[in-house]
């Protein structure tokens, strides 16, 4: 259709194999699954109908949908097609999917303004525009059919990929109408279905991306194998900002399969016939580093700097009433300070990127949440204009924010510039953890005032830490504030008449920060929900009843709180050593209440047995995906609460692999129940909500079980020994 389309044809070609597979389930049921990576884009022509950047219908009737968001396991490759298909009137089994090429104009996320998948906003951003895209196409197809038949469009309807003339029962499928529909001017305005007319949205749809994930055929970035491929692994300066001084590669070069040593300013890579030889070669290198100015840095230094920062005033994120005055007049004052650690992403698929640098152009194979960013930054590293850089996107073996960054692609380009032919740069797990970009460290200083009845009359919070947005999306950082860093610290669900929050931006030296399954809420909800629990305890009131009394104006929050409490058996007796804790939040456009039940052993170790979640995430697009995402978020949060901590010593990250940076395993995993509240509100995000709420729920449960308040994560069992 347009030149944009042509550019995309080159970049979306991922694999020669792209086909629908039929997966037979026992009992004869057939499920249509997509074998990913999916789209090999065919060139468009007058033969196809492309009413917008998301839909293409060929003469053969094939409906191809271009996915602006990437699949990371959150089910977006199923729920996004549901939005389009709902209005286009096609079944999910009738569509084929393609990864979107880098094109910020066409595929920017409306909530971010850039082409990226993150911040739990795929469904929120897509909710209106993609339904409109489907409806627009449907109206044009109906118009084309009505002209062909010489009947009024009002007598025609669309269903299951066909236009039907209702009075006569005549039918034409979309493929037969594609050419004519392409000539119809798009309607100026479309009317979308009401929630009660939905056929697809709200039904549990089978995921379209699963079948390749049970037989090893799904292709992630790390699986790319362009012909002539070499394999590389690397060591980067162990101290951030350090330099490579000297490297003795004689032993490494003698290893069978090692081909080349690539030296960069601050890293060294071994290129080999396979990763086994590359790793062996790397171990055989004798490397000397120039550590640079962060050589003495420790986490304590950073924490102290942040603590100091909370003593000075910062930009005001929210101000209601007069918190200072109300504090002064309060019957009781409660103060606390909270610390949250740096965290690594530890996606199961370690960082990797494959690059073929040909001098005048560059080809990249990677799994990314932000393809346009990768293209732009890789082009810079390659010294080429962006249109000379082709990026093939892949499935992502875990994103969580890590793959919103392009550092891995930049690194791979730097190495590939010195290598003949394509090279796949795979980071060892140690490198992945020690050169991540981390969820920031945070310090909060918070105070509240209670009246005689224990009700909060004043709330004042000042917190300090890094702003990821300021680096990643500078225009969104305004007047010292950004919407992500403060989400969950302001606009609380509770009625708090005098409320004051300040944020002090402090970028820690010597350690890069990034998004991490949300940033703001993963920190702020821990603080606010721990602190409201402290207030309930100070007022000697039940934690659920205390919260509920502050929710008269907020029926959605109240409903999920009551539901979670009821399902969890809140208030019923528990054995010695066990406790329940609750947390309530409204972040990413979804209301969520969680009750955790924990057991604290004599040695202080904490086991989370059961988690009950009640959620109102607006209209549910795919209920099965919501369940899965909440479960996933809870496990992620429990991992953080029990184990998550990255520390620096002498400027080096101390954790390296899953022995020192532990993950929750199945034998420690809680049972999780998810209850959804029916709602007609626009859909909210849920990929991250489960994570932010569970951490304070667990901490509050530990308090219920032991009387010890946890103001620093992760939980330190030594402090809980009895």
């Amino acid at each position, binding site marked *: 259709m347009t030149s944009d389309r042509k550019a995309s044809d080159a970049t979306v070609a991922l694999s020669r194999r792209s086909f629908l597979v039929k997966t037979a*389930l*026992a*009992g004869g*049921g057939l*499920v249509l*699954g997509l074998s990913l990576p999916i789209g090999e884009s065919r060139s468009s022509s007058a033969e196809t109908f492309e009413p917008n950047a998301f839909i293409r219908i060929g003469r053969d009737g094939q409906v191809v949908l271009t996915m602006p968001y990437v699949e*990371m*396991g*959150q089910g977006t490759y199923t729920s996004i097609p549901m939005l389009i298909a709902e209005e286009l009137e096609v079944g999910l089994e009738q569509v084929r999917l393609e990864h979107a090429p880098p094109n910020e104009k066409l595929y920017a996320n409306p909530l971010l303004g850039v082409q990226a998948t993150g911040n739990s906003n795929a469904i929120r951003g897509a909710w209106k525009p993609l339904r409109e895209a489907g409806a627009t196409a449907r109206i044009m197809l109906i118009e084309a059919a009505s002209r062909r038949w010489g009947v009024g469009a009002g007598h025609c309807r669309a269903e299951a990929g066909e236009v039907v003339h209702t009075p006569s029962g005549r039918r034409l499928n979309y493929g037969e109408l594609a050419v004519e529909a392409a000539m119809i001017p798009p309607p100026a305005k479309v009317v979308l279905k009401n929630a009660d007319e939905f056929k697809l949205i709200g039904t549990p749809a089978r995921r379209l*991306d*699963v079948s*390749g*994930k*049970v*037989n*090893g*055929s*799904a*292709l*992630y970035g*790390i*699986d790319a*194998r362009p012909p002539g491929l070499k*394999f590389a692994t690397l060591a980067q300066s162990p101290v951030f900002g350090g330099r490579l001084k000297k490297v003795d590669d004689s032993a490494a070069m003698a*290893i*069978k*399969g090692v081909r080349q040593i690539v030296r960069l300013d601050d890293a060294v890579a071994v290129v080999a*016939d*396979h*990763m*086994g*030889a590359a*790793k*062996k070669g790397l171990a055989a290198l004798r490397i000397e580093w120039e550590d640079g100015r962060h050589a003495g840095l420790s986490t304590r230094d950073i924490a102290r700097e942040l603590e100091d920062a909370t003593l000075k005033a910062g930009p005001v994120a929210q101000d209601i009433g007069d918190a200072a005055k109300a504090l002064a007049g309060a019957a009781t004052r409660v103060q606390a300070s909270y610390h949250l650690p740096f965290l690594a992403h530890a*996606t*199961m*698929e*370690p960082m990797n990127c494959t690059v073929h640098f040909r001098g005048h152009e560059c080809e990249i194979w990677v799994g990314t949440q932000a393809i346009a960013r990768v293209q732009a930054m890789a082009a810079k590293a390659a010294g080429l204009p962006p249109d000379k850089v082709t990026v093939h996107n892949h*499935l*992502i*073996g*875990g994103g*969580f924010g890590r793959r919103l960054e392009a550092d891995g692609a930049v690194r791979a380009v730097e190495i590939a510039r010195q290598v003949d032919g394509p090279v796949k740069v*795979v980071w*060892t*797990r140690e490198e992945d953890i020690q050169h991540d970009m981390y969820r920031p460290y945070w310090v909060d200083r918070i105070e509240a005032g209670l009246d005689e009845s224990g009700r909060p009359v004043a709330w004042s919070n000042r917190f300090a830490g890094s702003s990821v947005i300021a680096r990643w999306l500078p225009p969104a950082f305004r007047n010292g504030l950004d919407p992500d860093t403060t989400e969950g610290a302001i606009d609380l669900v509770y009625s708090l008449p005098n409320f004051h929050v300040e944020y002090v931006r402090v970028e820690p030296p010597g350690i890069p920060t990034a998004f991490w399954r949300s940033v703001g809420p993963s920190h702020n909800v821990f603080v606010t929900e721990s602190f409201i629990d402290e207030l309930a305890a100070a007022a000697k009131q039940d934690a659920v009843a205390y919260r509920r009394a502050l929710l008269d104006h907020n029926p959605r929050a109240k409903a999920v709180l009551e539901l979670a409490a009821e399902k969890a058996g809140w208030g019923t007796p528990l054995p010695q050593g066990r406790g329940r804790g609750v947390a309530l939040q409204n972040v990413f456009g979804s209301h969520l209440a969680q009750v955790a039940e924990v057991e604290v052993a004599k040695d202080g170790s904490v086991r989370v047995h059961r988690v009950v979640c009640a959620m109102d995430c607006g209209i549910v697009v795919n209920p099965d995906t919501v369940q899965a995402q909440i*479960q996933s978020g*809870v*496990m*992620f949060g429990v991992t953080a609460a029990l184990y998550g901590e990255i520390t620096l010593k002498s400027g080096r990250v101390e954790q390296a*692999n*899953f*022995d020192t940076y532990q*993950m*929750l*395993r*199945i*034998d420690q*995993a809680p049972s*999780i129940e998810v209850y959804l509240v029916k709602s007609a509100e626009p859909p909210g995000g849920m990929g991250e909500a489960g994570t932010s709420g569970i951490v304070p729920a667990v901490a509050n449960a530990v308090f219920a079980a032991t009387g010890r308040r946890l103001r620093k994560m992760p939980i330190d069992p030594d402090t809980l020994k009895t």
Partner: protein
Amino acid sequence: MSFTIDVNGIPRSVDVDGDTPLLWVLRDVLGMTGTKFGCGMALCGACTVHLDSAAVRSCITTVDSIGEGKVTTIEAIGGTSAGAKVQRAWLEHEVPQCGYCQSGQIMSASALLADKPHPTDADIDDAMSGNICRCGTYVRIREAIKLAAGSQVKER
């Protein structure tokens, strides 16, 4: 050194150092990318394959230790009865999220079921706790193993 190993019933010859982990022989030399790299230290289970009928971590299994042993990978596990049941149950419960760990999960689960057709929760904990899932699909993994252990996959 040249080694000939039996992978999924086919003898494959590779010319690598004897201490090369099987993982890289499979992925990089033979191009069988279904087996995944996660840690390289037997800590995560992503690289799990079967050596004869036992689940092993291919990242620490050197190619010279395999000898006559028969290697089965995710690409061929559907050809075993336990493997086929596990794959069907995984689809039925839609276990995978990002999916990256799932080759290893399925290999561990099928070794478990081949050995203990009706595992208890403790058996599941034992067999599966070496496999990390960063996406936290543990609830569904457990359900799917129980479904696979039952007589039939539920009809839908």
